[in-house]
Every structure is written in C-alpha cells, then in structure tokens.
C-alpha cells in the first residue's frame, strides 16, 4: 500500500491542487489492485465488479478491462450502482443530489462481489451501496476496492479490502481521481477545499 500521509497533509495548507499520482504510477497502482484480486480469487472465473455512481464506474471499467487482459478466458461482469435513493441524508443535506443509472444485468446471488469506488471518505456511500446491493440478491461476499482511502475521515466502521493509495487530509480537502478514458490523463488530485476544484 502506497502511503502518502505526510506529503498530503502538508499540501493541504496550499490553495492549488497537488497531483498525488499520475500516468505510469497510476497504472502501476491499478495493476497491483488487479493482481491482488486475482491473488484472492485464483479459481473464480466469473468476477462481479460493481462501480458506484458517479465516478466509481470509471474505475470499475478500468479494473475490469485490465483484469480481462491479465486473465484471458475469465468472464467479467461489470455493473453500475446508483445509491441516491438509498442515502440516509436525502432530506437533511443542504445540496440536492441527482440520481444516475443503475445497471446490474447479472445475478449476484451467491457470488463474490467487489464494490468499486474512487474515494473512500466517510463510508456512508459504501454503507448505502451495501443496502442497495441487497435489493438485487444475496451475495456470498462483498469486498470493497477504492483508489483513495482517506482513512482519518471515516464516520462509519468501514474499511476497504483493496486500496490504491492512502491520503490523510483535513475534512475540507477534496480528492479527485481522473482517468485517461474520461479526462485527459490518469491522475489523482488533492485540493485544499471542494470549492477549489
């Protein structure tokens, strides 16, 4: 696990965005995550990878694409999960949120499911995602993969099984993961505040 704790803590004080990881390094991290999955599921040739809307789906696409390359012949089920309707703060949050598409075309009953999100912050999204998944069936196991784990900002006792990088930053800081198939290049950015993005 790549630990960027100290650097990111310091850069939080600066106003401009800092790049924590990009291009080759980003892809190395992505590869490591894929190998970790293969290591954990050597005999399973049907993987269920579900990205959480909105930005987790891009990471899920990348992970699935890389896994298909590494493991020829294995079947990859990739889904999208929107958790808007499962949020527990819908009526109390100040900013309204917009729902996105949910698209899970495969059966998750009795399967091992890997939930994918870009940044793990409070853990509330994952909490809602697990509730949402139960409406699609009863997976035998749910694991969590995140690109960025902001481990000191958790509100719920939720930990990832696969972590790209760890970022320790103030609550106000904002971490964004960009992908070369969506934005121009693969990178992870740290902003001092969400409005600065």
């Amino acid at each position, binding site marked *: 696990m790549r630990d960027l704790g100290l650097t990111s803590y310091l850069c939080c004080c600066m106003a401009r965005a800092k790049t924590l990881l990009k291009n080759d390094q980003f892809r190395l991290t992505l590869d490591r995550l894929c190998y970790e999955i293969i290591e954990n599921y050597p005999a399973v040739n049907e993987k269920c990878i579900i990205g959480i809307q909105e930005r987790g789906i891009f990471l899920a696409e990348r992970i699935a694409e890389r896994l298909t390359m590494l493991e020829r012949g294995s079947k990859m089920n990739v889904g999208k999960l*929107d958790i*808007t*309707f*499962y*949020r527990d703060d*819908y*009526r109390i949050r*100040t900013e*309204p*949120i*917009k*729902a*996105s*598409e*949910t*698209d899970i075309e495969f059966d998750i009953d009795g399967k091992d499911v890997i939930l994918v999100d870009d940044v793990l912050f409070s853990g509330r999204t994952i909490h809602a995602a697990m*509730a*949402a998944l*139960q*409406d*699609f*069936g009863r997976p035998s196991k749910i694991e969590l993969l995140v690109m960025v784990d902001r481990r000191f900002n958790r509100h719920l006792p939720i930990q990832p099984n696969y972590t790209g990088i760890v970022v320790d930053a103030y609550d106000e800081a904002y971490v964004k993961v960009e992908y070369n198939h969506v934005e121009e290049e693969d990178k992870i950015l740290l902003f001092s505040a969400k409005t600065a993005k």
Partner: protein
Amino acid sequence: MSQSQLSTKHLLGIKYINTDDINLIFKTAQNFKEVINRPIKKVPSLRDVTIANLFFENSTRTRISFELAEKRLSADTVNFSAASSSVKKGETLLDTVNNILSMKVDMVVMRHPAPGAHHFLAQHIDANIVNAGDGTHEHPTQALLDAFSMTEKVGNLKGKKVVIIGDVMHSRVALSNIYCLQKLGAKVMVCGPPTLIPKHIVSLGVLVEYDIDKALAWCDIANILRIQLERQDIKYIPSLREYSLYYGVNKDRLNRLDKEITVMHPGPINRGVEITSDVADSDHSLILQQVENGVAVRMAVLYLLAGVRG
C-alpha cells in the same frame, strides 16, 4: 448544469412548473422505472415521510398508482376517501386537512371535485401538496406520465404533433396535457364535437379541428379521452352511439392513414365508444405502458418534492 431540485414545493398543476422541472421529473422517473423492474421493487428514500392520500372524488388507477409509488419509496401512507369521512358531517376542507396534518403528515396527495382546491390549501398549510386531479382543471401527474410515455416512444417531443381527442371541455387531463406538451415544444391540436371543445381554447395556442380524420392525418400521436358523462349536466352529444360513429377511433380510420400513429388513453376506457378494442389492444397503443410509467413518474414527483428545501 441542469437543475437537481424542483422549483416549487407543491405540484398544483403543470402550469406552475417549468420545462427544467419536467425534464428533471422525467430523468428521475427513468431511474425509478429501473427500480420497479427489479426483483425487490423498493428503495428506502422516503422512509421518514408520511403521506396522506385524500380522495374527495372516486379513483381507481390514480389512487393505486400513487399508493404503490409511495410504498415503493418506503413512505408511510394513510388513506382517506370522502365517502367514509367527516366531510359528510359538515367539516370544511381546511379543517379536515389540518386535522390530518396535526397527526404529523409531511405530504398530501389530493383529488378534489373543486377546481383550485389545491391552491387554496397551499396558502394555508405547510405540507407538500400533490394535485391528483381537481375537478375539470388539472391532473398534472397524468400529463407527466403521458408525456413521459410519448418521449419513450418517439424521443424528444420538440415539433411532434399531438392531438387530444374527445371531451376536452370536461377533461382535466386535456388541460394539463396541453400545458405539458407545449412546455416540451410539441404542437397540440384538440379535436371533438363543437359542444365539447371550450370556446376560448385557441387562446392556449392550440389548433382546433372538428373532423377527426383530418386530425388523425395531421398528428404523430393521438391521446384519446373518455366522454365524462358524470360531469355533463346537460346533453352535449345526442348519443354515445353517434359519438362513436363520428369521433370513435377504430381500425378503419387508422388504416386509411398513410402513416402509423401512436394511440394513448388515460383510462378508464369505454371500449367501443371513444376507442375500439382492436385499436386499444394493438401494438400502436401505449395504454398499458402509460399505467406502468404512472408509478415511476409519481415516484419521481413525490421523491423530488420531498427533497425541495426552503
């Protein structure tokens, strides 16, 4: 960026919401349509919300549709119908509603025979109000689900031609449909016997046609309304048989057209009067899709209204 919350806390009529609101409702309804086609058709979004369904007028479809929508959002619901209530004992509308609200109800879905009853309530109470039909005035959720079903079938409604056929005078569906379709950029025509077309309807910017064959030849989509005998205090048409002869949509009429048109009906259908069975049950008919979409659209309306702040 398009808006993510409605511009109003009540849905009193389509007249009072804007095009962005309509598009937001459609976008959200699409997501809910996916939800109601899941094995477990329920999300916990409104589990902290209590909704009262007040029906001062009879309803089957709308009432069941609203109730299903509420249950699929995990809201708590209470039902009320005028037939079995204190209204019969002389209680006023405001007193009835205030009594219900003092039991901590967050939203009111109401159908009332008096046009404007919802506006009156909105001035006096805090809860979100959804109009489920007020007399011959508006029936906004029906118009939304009609337009939503149309967009599913033909895509963007801009420039599309829609004709509303039948008892336009007594139909709240017609008025809401006109507002909704015009806000989405469609061209609207009304067609029916002159006695059932309101005199000043052209001031809404709609075309008027009394010959149904010309109207059908003009349109892409025909929305056919029921003859509302229960609202007609005098004879507007000589007989249902004559109406069906001159204004009934049947296979012959549709076969004579050089194109295929989509046929809709808000229900309940009087088979053999305004529409024949072979048309109502054909592939061109959206009638059952309308009913399915009704639940999704109403879920979207309730969900979005519950999320409006301030």
